[in-house]
């Protein structure tokens, strides 16, 4: 084997193992965080946690039932607002628009993405709280939905574009109209990436505190309907973590663990239900 080839093979083996190291670093960061949360908060994740309302400091047996339900409602609304805008907007960019419009829309999405979460909160406050003179679950969901839009839009567009030309041309050759091609060929073949994006956006907003402080505010009690302030896991974590009480600290870690657990469950369920076993990638 000539020396140059040996060198190239060595480089190849080295670089590829380095990528393995990168992956290991990334994954171990997550396991470390998980481990820390389990260690500090694991003991507090009990039946009470899921079913009881918060108890005042010093009393045991309190839980975060209202925060869990509150987060679920907020995220549901956020997804309802953020995903369609991002998804259909991305379809426009990938399939219909000219380069100039696409440029403007992408730029706008990137700018929106860079806005600090607290500024989004202030923005949502002036649009959804001030005119109605009260904090509400709706305002919170609106703020979170706004944050989901740019991630969903940009990445969905990338995945739509990554569908090979051959598939599009095949559909056209069969006489399908544009929207039919999109609905039955392009979106399904890019769906894995799109789902990943939506789940990523979902995960992102699930952990946001700042936008909720000025919109959903928080609630020690149950929040019926959509027009009352509501508790949420990230805000509960924030409030408990900065308090001087050990018991509340443990509950904060427990809440962090539960939040991660819920995201994991949503991930699994979403992939499970929506999986249609289409193997297009890695072909």
């Amino acid at each position: 084997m000539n020396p140059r080839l040996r060198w190239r093979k060595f480089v190849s083996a080295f670089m590829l193992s380095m990528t393995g190291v990168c992956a290991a670093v990334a994954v171990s960061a997550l396991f470390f965080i998980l481990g820390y949360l389990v260690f500090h908060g694991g003991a507090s994740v009990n039946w009470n946690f899921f079913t009881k309302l918060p108890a005042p400091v010093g009393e045991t047996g309190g839980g975060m039932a209202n925060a869990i339900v509150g987060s679920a409602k907020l995220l549901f609304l956020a997804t309802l607002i953020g995903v369609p805008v991002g998804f259909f907007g991305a379809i426009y960019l990938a399939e219909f628009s000219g380069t100039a419009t696409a440029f403007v829309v992408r730029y706008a999405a990137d700018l929106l993405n860079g806005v600090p979460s607290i500024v989004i909160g202030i923005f949502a406050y002036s649009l959804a709280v001030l005119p109605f003179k009260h904090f509400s679950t709706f305002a919170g969901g609106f703020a979170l939905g706004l944050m989901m839009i740019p991630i969903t839009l940009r990445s969905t567009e990338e995945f739509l574009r990554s569908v090979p030309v051959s598939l599009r041309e095949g559909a056209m050759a069969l006489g399908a109209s544009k929207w039919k091609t999109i609905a039955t060929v392009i979106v399904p073949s890019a769906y894995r990436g799109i789902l990943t994006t939506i789940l990523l956006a979902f995960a992102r907003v699930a952990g946001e505190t700042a936008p909720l402080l000025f919109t959903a505010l928080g609630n020690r009690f149950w929040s019926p309907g959509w027009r009352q302030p509501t508790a949420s896991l990230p805000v509960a974590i924030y409030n408990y973590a900065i308090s001087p009480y050990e018991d509340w600290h443990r509950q904060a870690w427990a809440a962090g663990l539960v939040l991660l657990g819920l995201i994991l469950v949503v991930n699994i369920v979403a992939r499970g239900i929506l999986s249609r076993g289409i193997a297009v990638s890695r072909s």
Partner: protein
Amino acid sequence: MATTSTTVPSAGPFAGSRSLLSRLRDGDEIARVITFLFAASVVLITVLLVFELWQGSALPRHRFGLDFLRTSVWDPVFDQFGALPFIYGTLVTSAVALLIAVPLGIGAAIFLAELAPLRLSDTLEFFIDLLAAVPSVIYGLLGIFIIVPLMREFVQPQLKHFLGFLPLFKGPAFGLGFLTAGVVLAIMIIPYIISVSREILLSVPRDQREAGLALGSTRWESTWKVVVPFARTGIIGSIFLALARALGETMAVTMVIGNTPIISSSLLSPGDSIASVIASQFKEATGELYTQSLIYLGLVLFLLTFILNGLARLMIVVTSQRGSGTVHA
């Protein structure tokens, strides 16, 4: 990658100019209009946001004007406000975060897409995606409890020992500061790079890889010189996402950056960033000039993001002249 915008020519008896009504009956036109409305709403929201920021910062804009961008004093008691230290902090922490996260992220994505068996890859991806779900408050707390002491006791003294001659590593090691904030940010943004890049790499057609291998390249060469460039725009898109996250991150940064509005060439120095100071001070800010100056900072960050995005896009366009595939900025 070839461009993908194709229009289906109108076939049939209504080819050529058509009335609005008949065009609307065509599913394509409706689809176009509906999706356009959604895309337009994104621009509308952004414009509305800028408008609100503009309105909400009227007082300091009239009082300070563009000097706001040049002055470094932030004094809520005597009503002196300047944005420079925060702009500096935002740029430095984001730069550090990207320098760490991009190589790590792309490396990991390559591993997950090219080397790992699909099952393993999917499982690992699950976990990496969870990093995006960790609340920023928890990142901040972990930063305080773990990363700051680690930095102060171990990493920073080592950096000073070996690289202390550089102005980058001068000054006392507090643990809090630009470097620590950058590291925490890096962990927070890495899932975006890995997740999206991995999917994009997975979607690169197999024949591309095989073509490279057929020509005698090693596995690495085929990956790095053929597959990755093919997926370039997607990967860069993921970096845009990550950058945006880094620029706007509030809670985690504010807990580990030291909250001192100063400009220092040392990465070990405490500092502050725009998002961090807004989060810190907005809730309690009283007085119109103070509150509005914080909103003015938000506007400045917007401008910063605008410029950074523009520069990055310019760079893509310039470097793609010789690259493979067309580029859409």
